């Protein structure tokens, strides 16, 4: 495939806003998951919440998009000078030559959850100020970002549950390779809502404690929220140290709606496809950022897949213990975390994991190690059996 340069990138999660707090949290193995009450949910749970969203003001000309998800989208866009770098790219290429491809699982559905509580008792009508198109609809967050930059290129939201914002990297590569656009804003935005908290609880997949990926006592996910963006362009200006997207592998489990194939066959095929796409072999990969949600069956299936493709000595870890599971934003967030570890030259140890499950064979890192890296792989798997593996590489000196 065409390698693409991440010419700018940023992220916001429970660890903080922008790259610096994330690099620091990964190095020091600091987590952002806390137990608290949230919204009207009638039980406390452990979550990775982004601080300050309630006080964030949507740009006044875009007030019709106001909801928690778009506030998070805007707050994250304005970190690390990302928005300025996008405007420069729009200046270079023109507004119709920049795509917006974002991943989200629930977009701003929280706004409809609240609106349903305020239906007119007689007519059943939703409050007059409820804006379905700009807040709830799956596309709303890409529509918001497209308007934020006054763009006129292609746009969509990919919504394949927890692989959503990994898959946008593949979609962007296709559009740029085919010459339909010169650059793409990719990433993911997903925010806390009742649907996911009550939904994952109904499946008994939420841990009562901060999640513990690959731990012998792991017992479920911690739901998080976050946003991540990358500006992807052809690698003309790549320099030593530039971060490149070099491989994408997408497959389907064709097995079950909410459980992974027990041997991780679809995950295995996605990792193999990403390697093939990058022209790399398993031995070239220096680190894997696991999907690692900390449910018993997900981690076991991923472990089987990773060890089948890479053996049992390749360092890997999940950063869900740091950020919580940010669902549709997880692929994008973990892509940027991969860029951070490639740039900083370290392998991040997990957070929350104390006693590795002896039944799992992968080399899961309990402590951060400083080491230069060349190629890393990131896994994202979702409901419906949707699998995506990405490979990121650091341009050699």
């Amino acid at each position, binding site marked *: 495939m065409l390698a693409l340069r991440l010419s700018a990138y940023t992220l916001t999660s429970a660890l903080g806003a922008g790259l610096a707090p994330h690099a620091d949290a990964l190095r020091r193995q600091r987590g952002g998951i806390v137990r608290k009450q949230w919204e009207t949910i009638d039980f406390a749970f452990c979550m990775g919440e982004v601080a300050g969203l309630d006080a964030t003001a949507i740009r006044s000309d875009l007030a019709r998009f106001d909801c928690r998800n778009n506030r998070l989208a805007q707050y994250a866009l304005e970190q690390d000078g990302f928005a300025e770098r996008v405007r420069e790219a729009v200046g270079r290429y023109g507004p119709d030559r920049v795509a917006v491809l974002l991943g989200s699982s629930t977009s701003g559905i929280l706004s409809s959850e609240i609106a349903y509580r305020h239906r007119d008792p007689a007519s059943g009508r939703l409050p007059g100020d409820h804006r379905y198109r700009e807040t709830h609809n*799956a596309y709303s967050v890409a529509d918001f970002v497209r308007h934020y930059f006054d763009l006129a290129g292609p746009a969509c939201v990919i919504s394949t549950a927890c692989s959503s914002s990994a898959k946008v990297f593949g979609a962007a590569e296709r559009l740029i390779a085919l010459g339909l656009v010169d650059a793409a804003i990719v990433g993911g935005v997903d925010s806390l809502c009742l649907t996911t908290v009550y939904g994952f609880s109904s499946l008994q997949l939420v841990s009562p404690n901060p999640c513990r990926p690959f731990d012998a006592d792991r017992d479920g996910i911690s739901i998080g929220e976050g946003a991540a963006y990358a500006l992807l362009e052809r690698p003309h200006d790549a320099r030593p140290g530039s971060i490149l997207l070099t491989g994408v592998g997408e497959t*389907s489990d064709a097995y079950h709606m909410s459980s992974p194939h027990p041997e991780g066959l679809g995950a295995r095929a996605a990792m193999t496809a990403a390697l093939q796409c990058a022209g790399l072999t398993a031995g070239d990969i220096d680190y894997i950022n696991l999907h690692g949600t900390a449910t018993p069956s997900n981690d076991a299936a991923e472990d089987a897949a990773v060890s089948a493709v890479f053996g049992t000595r390749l360092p890997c870890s999940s950063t869900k213990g740091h950020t919580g599971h940010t669902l549709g934003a997880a692929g994008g967030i973990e892509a940027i975390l991969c860029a951070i570890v490639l740039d900083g030259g370290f392998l991040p140890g997990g957070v929350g994991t104390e006693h590795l499950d002896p039944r799992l064979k992968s080399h899961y890192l309990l402590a951060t190690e400083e080491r230069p890296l060349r190629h890393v792989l990131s896994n994202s798997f979702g409901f419906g059996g949707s699998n995506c593996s990405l490979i990121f590489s650091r341009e050699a000196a």
Partner: protein
Amino acid sequence: MSMDAIYLDGISLLGPGLPDWEEAVAILCGDKPAELAPVTVTAPALLPATERRRAGTSIKLSMAVGLAAAEAAGIDPGGLANVFTSSGGDCENCHHLLDALASSERMISPTRFHNSVHNAAAGYWSIATHCEAASTSLSAYDASFGAGLIEAAGQVLTSGAPCLLIAFDTAYPEPLFALRPVPFPFGVGLVLSPTRGAHSMATLGLSLTRDPADTLSEPPLEQLRREIPTARALPLLQRLAGGGAGRVVLDYLDDTRLAIEVGG
């Protein structure tokens, strides 16, 4: 800038008064009047019994048009990469979840929850057809058909393999229906291929344009085009039904539209 042309190998359509592609051809060509009759969607036998019970209109509709398009192309859907595009996915299921979350009990069923993901239809499709190939599910509100066609064409041209596009929309019940009034279920399936084959009907060359979108002269069809995101495809379908070559412009995003050069 245009993308390279791709081949259309199979087509299907299911909408009001448009029960399949063969009948739709006569209506789109003006040989039969367009009448907006209610849509009947049945669960395909391919879906395992448990899944069939859990399947709502969106799953049945998407599967029906997907299977019909693959059959028209003479291709096994089990090996086909696929792109699902829909403005709202399973809107009925979404309403039931929102209703439950607004109640004092807030009990939601695990099945309703896993059916709430936008890629639920794609998940059921992969299970029913045993398809392990790449699958994407996307939305672009009213531009969902155009966004799906661009993504599917991109898959075909970069992978060198055929791809199935399944575009569908269903309606929310009230109260969301008032804010998103999709009048009828509507689904379109297209099998796209990088090379000419025995079933190839036409070539399609995509580019973006600012030109106005084509409209339909028959009021019932034009009403569908305006009110259902997937039915934004109708000017293309009409051109294909007539068998003629030429340029078609479809509504896409705001002032950005999708031009399609249809060739023989």
